[in-house]
């Protein structure tokens, strides 16, 4: 049976929906707020801003992170910037334009009302961050500076050197630490969420493992908020931090939360290419570099000359050639596919042939080395450290890598999943980026959700839940604790022959090959067989050393990789069912004559939300139709 997915989008004109909704949510009396417990899992931009803001409102918050401090969350690694429709540059920007760019950038697969709200809130985020002391770049007159990002023709990106994510996260982290000191938030560091507790259909708590002593514990609350990030570490090699994982959202999925659009993953065009088997992760080079860097490959195949020996006339600046109006600032999905295409043609550079140049020679000539240093200094240094090549002298070598997941748990307009009481914010939900995310929009979404949306919408639910907390001694909690304990023992007791990492690498290889930048029905079917076989072998043959009663990094990884196996399968199932190409989901069978993504709006204009049906059963697809009231569906063009 398929369920009705109610997106709860408010009525009225698009631009008035959020104002209307805010004025009509049920409220919780300020004196009663401290009687509600809210669990927030994760303290990246979304989780930290939510936990801090909920604490400020007076709720009783418990915040869980697996790091030693909330400030380590992977939001910290975001480099380039955060979008906001401030129109400080007088270049014709507006809330509508940011909304429109995001819908188009997402290849018309996002929910209009959510995206419009995001664009509205973008301006408040900048105000809030500046008030917190985030040192955004400034002009000499003291006003805030902006730069451009991919997929847009205005300058609306705010930045703090190449460390925008770090500085925004510190703003949220400091707000959170302030609430911890005030006692409204109780912080649990080095705790990993391993299950969601659902009682009579409502989210009532979580099960955690203490990563220092291994204790498995139950925590009850009136609502649970997941801000646990994305899942592209399923590919093993990605730009995500090593610990980034899908366990929290996957456990919630197995307890009833629908997983929406799992096949929408973003492959970022500008990452440092892999240099060997030992490689543990890939490093992103910010998209902001494409403001001044020009991307090219040699015109002829197998050209082994160094970049400086290749004369101008023998270079192919393929993005400028194919997409003259956006040039090097074409959106990520398009730039990545174009890089793959030229490498497939045998024109890739570097020892592996899987790379393209990102060249700053013209920009340095035009602007001087000092300006380039000011704009990108730390990125150039990082590139130099990793590759031992000086990008001021030689063009950077780059190649696409998995970076972000647009898919995630399904949520309604209020950011609540289909499981009442379970909220999902930031990258962990599916809501705002459709099939492709534009640069500098992830920070915007995480903070919009955490500072401004969730703290308001959650009251509407909590107002109906007064005094309905469940005791952790009740059967549902005790059972869940036992389930988690059993799973931990199963991993340790397998006592097999192969390390967790070796399995993860193999899984990642399958996913990159068949569910990466280009997908086909044939490849996906093959992948499904391979994943199932490997997963079966994993549970039998994985080797986890040590015990469950101590810090055990192998055990932590083992649980996460076990969940990646199941998620990988769902990603392939989703990619197989979506017989169209849209944004980051490129099915080779569905492309235009010139190789662009071909959508099928008649058949696939919906959010595909999957329901877990138990071990060994096929998941069931539920559809939320996408209704475009404001934007006219069009073929996405950046030419």
């Amino acid at each position, binding site marked *: 049976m398929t369920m009705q997915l109610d997106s709860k989008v408010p009525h009225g004109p698009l631009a008035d929906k959020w104002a209307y909704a805010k004025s009509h949510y049920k409220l919780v009396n300020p004196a009663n707020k401290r009687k509600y417990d809210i669990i927030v899992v994760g303290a990246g931009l979304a989780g930290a801003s939510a936990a801090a803001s909920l604490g400020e409102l007076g709720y009783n918050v418990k915040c869980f992170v697996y790091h030693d401090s909330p400030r380590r969350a992977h939001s910290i690694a975001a480099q380039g910037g955060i979008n906001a429709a401030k129109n400080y540059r007088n270049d014709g920007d507006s809330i509508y334009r940011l909304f429109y760019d995001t819908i188009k950038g997402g290849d018309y697969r996002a929910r209009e009302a959510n995206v419009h709200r995001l664009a509205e809130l973008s301006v408040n985020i900048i105000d809030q961050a500046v*008030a917190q002391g985030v040192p955004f770049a400034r002009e000499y007159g003291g006003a805030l500076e902006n730069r451009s990002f991919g997929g847009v023709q205005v300058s609306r990106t705010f930045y703090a050197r190449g460390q925008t994510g770090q500085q925004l996260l510190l703003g949220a982290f400091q707000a959170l630490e302030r609430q911890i000191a005030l006692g409204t938030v109780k912080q649990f560091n080095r705790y990993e969420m391993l299950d969601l507790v659902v009682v009579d259909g409502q989210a009532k708590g979580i099960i955690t493992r203490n990563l220092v002593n291994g204790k498995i514990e139950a925590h009850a609350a009136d609502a649970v908020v997941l801000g646990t990030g994305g899942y592209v570490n399923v590919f093993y090699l990605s730009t995500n*931090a090593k610990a980034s994982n899908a366990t929290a959202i996957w456990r919630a999925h197995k307890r009833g939360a629908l997983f929406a659009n799992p096949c929408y993953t973003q492959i970022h065009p500008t990452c440092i290419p892999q240099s060997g088997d030992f490689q543990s992760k890939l490093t992103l080079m910010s998209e902001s570099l494409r403001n001044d860097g020009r991307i090219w490959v040699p015109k002829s195949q197998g050209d082994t000359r160094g970049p400086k020996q290749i004369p101008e006339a023998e270079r192919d600046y393929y993005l400028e050639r194919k997409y003259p109006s956006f040039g090097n600032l074409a959106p990520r999905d398009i730039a990545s596919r174009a890089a793959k295409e030229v490498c497939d043609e045998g024109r890739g550079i570097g020892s592996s042939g899987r790379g393209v140049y990102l060249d700053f020679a013209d920009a340095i000539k035009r602007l001087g080395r000092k300006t380039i240093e000011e704009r990108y200094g730390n990125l150039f240094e990082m590139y130099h450290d990793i590759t031992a090549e000086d990008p001021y002298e030689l063009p950077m070598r780059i190649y696409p890598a998995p970076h972000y997941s647009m898919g995630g748990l399904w949520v309604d307009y209020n950011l609540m999943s289909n499981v009442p009481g379970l909220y999902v914010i930031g990258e962990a939900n599916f809501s705002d980026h459709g099939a492709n995310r534009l640069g500098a929009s992830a920070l915007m979404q995480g903070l919009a959700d955490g500072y401004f949306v969730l703290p308001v919408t959650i009251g509407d639910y909590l107002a109906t839940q007064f005094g309905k907390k469940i005791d952790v001694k009740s059967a549902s909690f005790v059972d869940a604790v036992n389930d988690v304990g059993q799973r931990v023992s199963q991993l340790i007791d397998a006592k097999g022959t192969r390390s967790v990492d070796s399995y993860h690498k193999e899984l990642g290889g399958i996913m990159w090959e068949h569910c990466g930048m280009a997908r086909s029905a044939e490849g996906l079917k093959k992948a499904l067989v391979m994943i199932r076989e490997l997963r079966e072998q994993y549970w039998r043959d994985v080797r986890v050393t040590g015990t469950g009663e101590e810090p055990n990094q*192998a055990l932590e990884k083992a649980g996460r990789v076990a969940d990646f196996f199941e998620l990988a399968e769902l990603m392939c199932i989703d990619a197989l069912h979506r017989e169209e190409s849209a944004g980051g989901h490129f099915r080779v069978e569905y492309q235009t004559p010139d190789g662009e993504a071909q959508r099928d709006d008649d058949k696939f204009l919906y959010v595909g939300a999957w329901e877990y049906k138990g071990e060994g059963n096929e998941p069931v697809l539920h559809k939320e139709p996408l209704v475009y009231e404001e934007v006219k569906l069009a073929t996405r063009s950046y030419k």
Partner: protein
Amino acid sequence: MDLTLHVWRQKSRDAEGKFVEYKATGISPDASFLEMLDVVNEGLTEKGEEPIHFEHDCREGICGSCGMMINGIAHGPLGGTATCQLHMRHFNDGDTVAIEPWRARAFPVIKDLIVDRSPLDKIIQAGGFISVNTGSAVEANTLPIPKPVQERAMDAAECIQCGACVAQCPNGAAQLFTAAKISHLGLLPQGQPERHERVLNMVEVMESYFGSCTLFRECEAVCPKEISVDFISRMNRDYIAAKFGVR
């Protein structure tokens, strides 16, 4: 390249630790120091031994998770870099490398190379913020900030809270960390209302956990973000002004 490692192994906080020798063989000079340890750990797992535990996450030098004493130097010989951004090309084939956890009274060992750095968060809780609730901010451009002031604040704000400054300091002091946050916020106009309160409270908590500064400047030498000890002088001036009412 091949290396000999002497790695500090310690089962738990209260267990006794010791150096254990391992061989790291066939290491690519392009591998990072942590990737070299990954290779060693795969070998240990194959042999059924427990891998060396170390903290790490982003591996891009920004999250501040990683850090170890490498031949007695926090984050290793390169300087201006976190351990994850230290590459093996900076070592020679046949080198012997000693690897220890951060050494500081305030940072007890949790396991192997993992230490408890939570006192640093306690310092932030004492005042490392600007008290502005969500929703009460004014329009961002109503407050112009001169570019040099913003740049200076950013220099301080780059701190990644890795704890190298404490680990390298003979006194186990956290002055550089604390001064960086006090300066980041205290340089900006937004940070003025709480400026004096902030420095008094943060310094008090700092002193309850960490040693005193006697100007060795070892912290600056190992800081992966090359944060200047000038900020410590600035903190001291602020502290005196706050303490003795010279405001």
